[in-house]
């Protein structure tokens, strides 16, 4: 447009860079702190430039853990988080896609009832049924297990809705054509529908992986053993001890390691991420 093109544009660039700095500063600080000496940080004399303890801190964090309280290597916590995140993401996609397939491609009594039963779980987040769910998982002897961490979170109204919507747009001719070729429900699902859903599944996977990796309240309740804790729980336990004992470089290295996988996924798979985010909100 017409007025002050140049100035406007410089202003936009400036505001965006200020925004980016504000957004990035806390993380920059964490990275810097993870390379410095604990004594200096505890004194409140932390420098804003990287220090020389990078290798030492990260080695200790990943393979040894804090020297105080839990002494649980963060590498192990990351493994727990990874297993949980993958189980949640893959589990949600798997059970949602088959239930959507049943609801769209079959006629059976209580079809819509099934749909609504799944849909209504949207209104029952973990936060509103914390202790009864805990009790059930305890009764099933699933505390401190990967199944206990992931199973209760695996249902997904959003994913089911998304796949249902997508299947509705798949032309009927495809089903007729594969039926002429002699394909039954399994063959059609596997050879036709699944390949068509690939992009949707990938977009959903990106969102669900981040969601799974970042779970907090649920693992906090059901993990008691140190070797079963996820990285999000581990980091909380590291700062429980009195301030003076907190090993800040290790805490900050853990924070960086906790951010790394999901942030990498967002940046590396930005297109799928944006697509997944927009679609799951529909």
């Amino acid at each position, binding site marked *: 447009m017409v007025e002050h093109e140049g100035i406007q544009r410089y202003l936009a660039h400036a505001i965006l860079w200020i925004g980016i700095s504000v957004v990035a500063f806390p993380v920059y600080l964490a990275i810097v702190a993870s390379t410095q000496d604990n004594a200096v940080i505890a004194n409140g004399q932390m420098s804003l430039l990287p220090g020389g303890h990078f290798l030492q801190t990260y080695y200790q964090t990943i393979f040894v853990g804090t020297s105080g309280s839990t002494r649980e290597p963060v590498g192990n916590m990351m493994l727990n988080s990874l297993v949980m995140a993958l189980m949640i993401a893959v589990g949600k996609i798997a059970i949602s896609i088959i239930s959507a397939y049943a609801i769209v491609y079959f006629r059976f009594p209580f079809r819509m009832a099934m749909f609504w039963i799944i849909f209504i779980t949207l209104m029952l*987040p973990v936060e509103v049924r914390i202790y009864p769910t805990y009790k059930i998982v305890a009764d099933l002897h699933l505390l401190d297990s990967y199944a206990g961490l992931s199973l209760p979170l695996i249902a997904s109204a959003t994913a089911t809705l998304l796949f249902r919507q997508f299947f509705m747009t798949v032309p009927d001719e495809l089903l007729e054509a594969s039926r002429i070729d002699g394909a039954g429900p399994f063959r059609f699902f596997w050879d036709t529908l699944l390949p068509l859903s690939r992009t949707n599944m990938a977009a959903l996977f990106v969102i669900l992986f981040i969601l799974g990796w*970042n779970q907090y309240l649920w693992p*906090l309740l059901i993990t008691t053993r140190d070797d079963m804790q996820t990285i999000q729980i581990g980091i909380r336990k590291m700062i429980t001890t009195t301030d003076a004992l907190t090993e800040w470089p290790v805490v900050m290295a853990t924070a960086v390691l906790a*951010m790394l996988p999901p942030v990498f996924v967002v940046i590396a798979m930005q297109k799928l991420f944006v697509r997944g985010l927009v679609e799951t909100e529909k």
Partner: protein
Amino acid sequence: MQKQSIFQSKLLPYALVAPQLAIVLIFFYWPAAQAVLQSFLLQDAFGLSTSFVWFENYVELFKDPRYFEAVVRTFVFSFAIAFSSLSFALLLAVMADKPLRGGMVYRTLLIWPYAVAPPVVGVLWIFMLHPSLGVLSRYLRDLGIDWNPLLNGDQAALLIILAAAWKQVSYNFLFFLAGLQSIPKSVIEAAAIDGARPMRRFWTVIFPLLSPTIFFLLVVNIVYAFFDTFGIIDTMTRGGPGKATETLVYKVYTDGLLGGNLGSSAAQSVILMGIVIALTAIQFRFVERKVTY
């Protein structure tokens, strides 16, 4: 909406819904029903006997000024988080919507905080603004502010709001940018030809056209502030100092865990359930989502 061509099978569809149905019934409906039932029960101090007390747990809650404070606090937090995060994100989105060189780079650099987990957000912010070792606290003290969020409730609340808003900026930015990009350029050009200056163009043309996006994001942000701030609060203040940062969700957690007051905790859960149902209903009933990518 129904498909015209379908498969015929009596058992297969049930087998296909069975896994999801089992999980939903065992881990969602059964506990939710338990929560409702428990909210009508009262346990004695030793957990030896329980009696059915109808709405006593609810009545107790509504009489408790601390619960009322938590309700007000949660709403204040929600609106403060939504407002600050939405306005900052809108400013950035309007700037990024201009035809700038490196537009995609800006987007990439602004959306990643979405992936940072709430407890990590809490750790990052308490470290930055810790009373004794926080880097920014030094400057605040130099300005003559007696900064100590670990002792001062209002400062703790401010810290929670800032940290929670920080994380949500990326999400809001993304949806605002999508909303802005779907506004036809011809509309804005028409306003420019009519002589409307940029600020006026924004408030009279762009802002009203964005209102569906704004309303949608407002609901999403309130839901976020209600539920996803748990991790931020738990790593940063644990609801303290005093009860200054205890939200409704955090109170359900602490009352059931430490207080052992399961009846009251369950009643609070049921009230929260009502809030979630209301918010979800608003989202589906009134929010028109015209975000296109």
